[in-house]
């Protein structure tokens, strides 16, 4: 069929307009991204500058400006001291978090699946979750001693409950319509869990892990300081007690960096495992 030249021109114009609109969209996204970055960098600069100005005016026995902290960091990292203590702490964190994650996910799944367990355990889980775990540490020391076992137990207790509760919620929040689809296509229970319930609950579970990692870091320092003193907690306490505040700040800042990067890592994992949650819809 012969397409009139006017139509061809109109088509070409539409095509150009489309390209232009797409280009504009891309451009505005890029600008948004640059702006976000600029604000982050700017705010960091302001905070560091203020810290520097205030820090210089205070007795170095009590406070240290970021420049001094940076110098101390170079020293502590260079000598291997920071890593030596940090690695002790991280190892315990890994034990406790792994235990909390495995048992927490398992407990959440079992409670969500078996009504009896749900009814029987729900109150305890909620009650234990609301007890400040800090209060339990002396008892743990009494039972488990001062070493790795006790430290692992502290971190386990801090991480187990948020993971359990999130896993449970994730299973309970599976779209009932999707369960019905599963039933309509004659899924047996195993396959229903494998293909529908678990994937649907996964984002909740990962959110639980993210929550738990923050609490795990708190627990880690807590265990360092309040059981046999060791690890990065020891580093903080030691430098504070000998008034080397610049060096004391190095492990403190390290903990902040660790928290941000571990949480970010789990966000990435979530994006990879549940891409459908982060996409804009088709229209």
């Amino acid at each position, binding site marked *: 069929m012969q397409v009139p030249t006017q139509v061809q021109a109109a088509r070409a114009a539409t095509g150009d307009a489309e390209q232009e609109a797409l280009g504009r969209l891309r451009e505005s996204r890029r600008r948004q991204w640059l702006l976000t970055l600029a604000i982050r960098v700017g705010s960091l600069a302001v905070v560091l500058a203020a810290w520097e100005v205030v820090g210089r005016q205070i007795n170095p026995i009590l406070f240290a400006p970021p420049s001094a902290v940076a110098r101390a960091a170079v020293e502590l990292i260079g000598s291997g001291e920071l890593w030596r203590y940090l690695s002790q702490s991280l190892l315990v964190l890994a034990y406790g978090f792994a235990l909390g994650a495995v048992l927490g996910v398992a407990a959440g799944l079992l409670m969500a699946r078996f009504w009896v367990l749900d009814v029987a355990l729900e109150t305890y889980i909620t009650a234990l979750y609301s007890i400040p775990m800090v209060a339990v540490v002396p008892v743990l020391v009494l039972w488990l001693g001062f070493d790795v076992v006790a430290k692992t137990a502290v971190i386990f207790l801090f991480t187990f409950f948020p993971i359990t509760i999130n896993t449970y919620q994730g299973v309970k929040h599976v779209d009932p*319509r*999707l369960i*019905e*689809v*599963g*039933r*309509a*296509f*004659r*899924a*047996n229970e195993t*396959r229903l869990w494998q*293909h*529908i319930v678990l*994937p*649907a609950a*996964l984002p909740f579970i990962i959110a639980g892990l993210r929550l738990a990692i923050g609490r795990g870091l708190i627990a880690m320092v807590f265990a360092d300081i309040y059981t046999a003193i060791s690890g990065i907690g020891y580093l903080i306490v030691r430098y504070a007690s000998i008034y080397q505040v610049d060096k004391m700040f190095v492990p403190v800042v390290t903990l902040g960096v660790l928290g941000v990067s571990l949480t970010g890592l789990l966000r990435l994992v979530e994006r990879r495992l*549940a*891409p*459908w949650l982060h*996409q804009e*819809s*088709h*229209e």
Partner: protein
Amino acid sequence: MSDQHGKIVVEKASKVFREGTVVAFRNLDLVVQEHETLCIVGPSGCGKTTLLRCIAGLIPLTSGKILIDGQPVCEPRAGVAVVFQHFGLLPWKTVADNVAFGLVMAGAPRARIAEQVARCLRLVGLEGFERSYPYQLSGGMQQRVGLARALAVDPSVLLMDEPFASVDAQTRELLQEELLALMAREPKTMVFITHSIDEALVLGDRVAVLSSRPGRVKEILTVAFPRPRNMAWIRAQDTYIALRNYIWEQLRPSVVA
């Protein structure tokens, strides 16, 4: 045994919710013959979706019975597939894996799954989208996936729960046309719930008009347009216009604006 014969027989079926305070439908009788398309129209809340879910075996009747191939339905059966208004696609699965879902649940061998998935995606015009995810598709394309998933299990009965209600008007038209072509190629028994009189007349061999709560069959009309069907031709017929007006008059009293 039932005294009526048909692919699907609904006999004195009632469904009551909330300890009897809400009656979805009561003493409902319907027969669907093999390879027939029965469209069910009715106002919102006449229990048509509930009826479909009962036929699918997803929820039990309060009383009465439903037979498919002479067998009472008490759970979802092999050979019966449902297409949902909400599509019901699994967002974590690709298009191909969504289409394969029913076969995987049935434990079909790999080779057969691959073959069926390819065939059904071709039937609904979605070749090349195997590895896409539902969220990357338009509503119309998502429902094509829903349809392909139902077709993949080679059902003899298709239960359609307002499948095109949530896609735009042009897409709906297109999907209706394609469904007609599919049915012409591979005849199936189909129960098609819709609130569109037009859709019911274009697709159905018969149209059951349901009344509002409690739902009951007001009337069943035979739509005798020849097959294969041409939608434009059907809409131009006087019979079509007469039926359309008649059904609307039937429904009007129970449609509360």
